[in-house]
Structures are given as C-alpha cells and as structure tokens.
C-alpha cells in the first residue's frame, strides 16, 4: 500500500511517500491512521487532530470509514487551499 502526505502532514512526518504493509485487520482509513501513528512521533503529531486531516483513496476524496486494501494509494492532506 502506498501512502502519500501533502502540505504540513508531509512536513511533520518528514516524508512525502512511504510504502507500508499494514497487518491484516486494518480494514479502513481510521484503522490505517491508528496504525500509522505508531510509526514515529512525526506521524503521531501529524494525525493528532483528525478534524484538520482529509483523505483520498485511489485519488478520490473519501471518509475515514472508507475501506483500504493492499495495492491502494492512500493520501493524507489538510483541507485544500488552491485556486
């Protein structure tokens, strides 16, 4: 599973992309986040306030209850500020 970070999530975590293999039992975005938070203090900080975090699975905006599976591309980022 490919996980991407943008904007201040990338800054806090210290990388823009990582390849991860969550254990079986990690079935949705919320579960993935809980698991990712254990990887480093940076991850812990980035995911401290989930109200400020948005997620896309395979490049579509989704909610935290969206399923995730091996092979997915999961991206975390703050609310967008383009335009």
């Amino acid at each position, binding site marked *: 599973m490919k996980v*991407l970070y*943008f*904007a*201040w999530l*990338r800054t806090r975590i210290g990388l823009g992309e990582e390849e991860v293999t969550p254990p079986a039992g990690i079935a949705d975005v919320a579960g993935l986040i809980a698991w990712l938070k254990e990887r480093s203090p940076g991850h812990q900080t980035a995911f401290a306030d989930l109200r400020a975090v948005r997620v*896309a699975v395979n*490049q*579509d*905006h989704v909610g935290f209850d969206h399923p995730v599976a091996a092979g997915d591309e999961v*991206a975390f*980022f*703050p*609310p*967008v*500020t*383009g*335009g």
Partner: protein
Amino acid sequence: MIRVQREDFDVGVEVAAFSAGDAGVGAICTFVGLVRGGDGNGVTAMTLDHYPGMTERQMAAIESEARSRWPLSDVLVIHRFGRLEAGARIVLVATASAHREAAFQACQFLMDWLKTRAPFWKLEHTPGGDRWVEAKASDDALAERWDG
C-alpha cells in the same frame, strides 16, 4: 480543457485561442487568480504543493460537472504549481456560452469547486518564515451555494 503546469500562462493568448470561431458564443467570462503581496500581509512569494494525478482527475471531474449544469461551448482551466512570486498568476478559468448568465455562473462555480476540491496547498513565504495557508470557511460557504 484542463492544464496543470509550473509555467506561467498568457491570458491574451489563451483567451484568443479560446472558443475561437464558434459562432454560437455570445459570452466569455474569464477569471484570473494572483498571488497577493505587499500590502501588510508580508507575503513575498508562495509555493503551491499539489497531488499529481489526483489534481488532473479532480479538475476534469469539476469541468464535467460544470458542463452538465450549464450549456457551455468551451471551458478552460489552467492551474499552476511550484514557487510563485507576489503578483504572479495562479489560476485561469474561462467559460464560453451563448448567454452571459451561464458563462458567469459556470466560471464562479469552477472557481468555488477548485478552491474546495482540487488538491492544491499554498505555502506562503514571508520574511518571518513560511506558513501553510488555512482553508477558509467562507470558501466552503461559497462552494455550498451550488449544492442541491
């Protein structure tokens, strides 16, 4: 038509090519967004982060939505990424239609949805350091007027 690019664009050239030769077009609305600087906000430049791949997908989806809502002869959206100095162009949206109200509304809609759905993030550079721009509730409110 959607373009995501680091390079600047020439509004005159883009608009001249836009919907050229379509006799049914009576109205063209254009919007250009620029990096504001100078006036007390201390912003000397910004860097636009984006999500390659998803950006194009989202922008294409937003264009499709606009075309399904209004009778548009042509649509152009250009959005830049990377470092942009104060005064630089960030985004161009152009809409062409038989009638002005469709052109105006579609152009506003495209900007409102780009602001709230396209995966871009602004990092402002100031003499005091860098700061990520926070999303504005007012932008969400503007986008929501197109719901339902």
